[in-house]
């Protein structure tokens, strides 16, 4: 599914976003990796399999970014093409995979926290948390935004649309 998403972008069936080739690749990667995680959740639905997005590690990643003189995560998120975007560095193409992972995790962590899920472990028999992850990936797909210019996908723009029913656990 990871690869399929890439093909949909290549074929312009999902809009590519980003100002540079590296930024576009990182946005593409964020979505593909989100698809991969979403399918992983679904394939293990009803089990005690878990995926974890540790907030402490996400913070450490952000701290690394903030140390850069060329990239200020706090100046992103305006959504415009103003001076703050021009001032920051772009994603080097060979690093787009890693940056895509970071953008995906930023997006998921932001939305999970917005929904009050402070422990960022998603167990495959917890439909509320699973559906939160699915909803972020869905929003990233249907309404792509340039995550390289933001602190992840804005939680306020994610619509919670359940994929798994609330009573998933009783089936197993």
């Amino acid at each position: 599914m990871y690869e399929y998403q890439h093909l949909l972008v290549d074929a312009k069936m999902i809009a590519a976003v980003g100002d540079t080739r590296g930024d576009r690749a990182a946005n593409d990667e964020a979505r593909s990796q989100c698809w991969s995680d979403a399918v992983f959740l679904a394939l293990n639905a009803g089990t005690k399999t878990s995926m974890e997005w540790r907030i402490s590690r996400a913070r450490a990643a952000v701290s690394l970014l903030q140390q850069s003189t060329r990239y200020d995560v706090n100046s992103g998120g305006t959504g415009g093409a103003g001076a703050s975007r021009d001032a920051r560095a772009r994603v080097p193409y060979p690093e787009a995979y890693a940056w895509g992972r970071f953008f995906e995790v930023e997006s998921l962590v932001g939305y999970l926290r917005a929904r009050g899920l402070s422990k960022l472990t998603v167990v495959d028999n917890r439909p509320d948390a699973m559906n939160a992850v699915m909803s972020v990936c869905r929003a990233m797909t249907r309404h792509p935004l340039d995550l390289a210019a933001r602190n992840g996908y804005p939680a306020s723009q994610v619509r919670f649309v359940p994929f798994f029913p609330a009573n998933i656990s009783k089936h197993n």
Partner: protein
Amino acid sequence: MDQAMRPRPVTGERPSLRMAAGLALASASLAACAGRFRYDVPREVMRAPNAQTWGVGLLHSRPAYSVASTTVLNGGAPLREKPTAVIASGAAASWQWRVVAVPSVVPLWTAWRAARKNRRIRREAERTGNRFHTAVDWDLALERAYRVVQYLYGSELPPMRVTLLLIPDGTEYRTRITETGNGYFPVTLAFYWPPPRGWSRC
């Protein structure tokens, strides 16, 4: 524009299951001029021992889809067989799929499928409409994956014909296959069977 100043993120932001998978990477490949491919991961990572990399790139879409599928599995053991045994095939709506294994993998797959627990899960999944159980077989997995992607994408999914090649864990396998599909995406990728511990690629 100076691109070198942007630091790489630490690896800690990855979900723990992916961390356990080690260098289970996948990358988008793009055809540059003169048929040269570039990957969105550093070359050193792709060359690392035991690294696993998969990539696809749409070379052109007219008059038909031409897709390059790349698999790089840096195992230490030589692969002495070719994947020739079709162990499963089917369709999930607009996706057609088949699984082709090297002969030595077939008994391992057969044993997995015959395990009492997996047979029980399969029966239960079929009874409940294959939505809430571990996907223990290819048809269940592809069907459920199709549902997920349709939920994500929001409309009818473009056709795909995917071939999954199964090779023994720990072997070395590097190939790029270019296929053409008239009205569908052709994709061929290779994976280890049984999957390495902590494997989480979907």
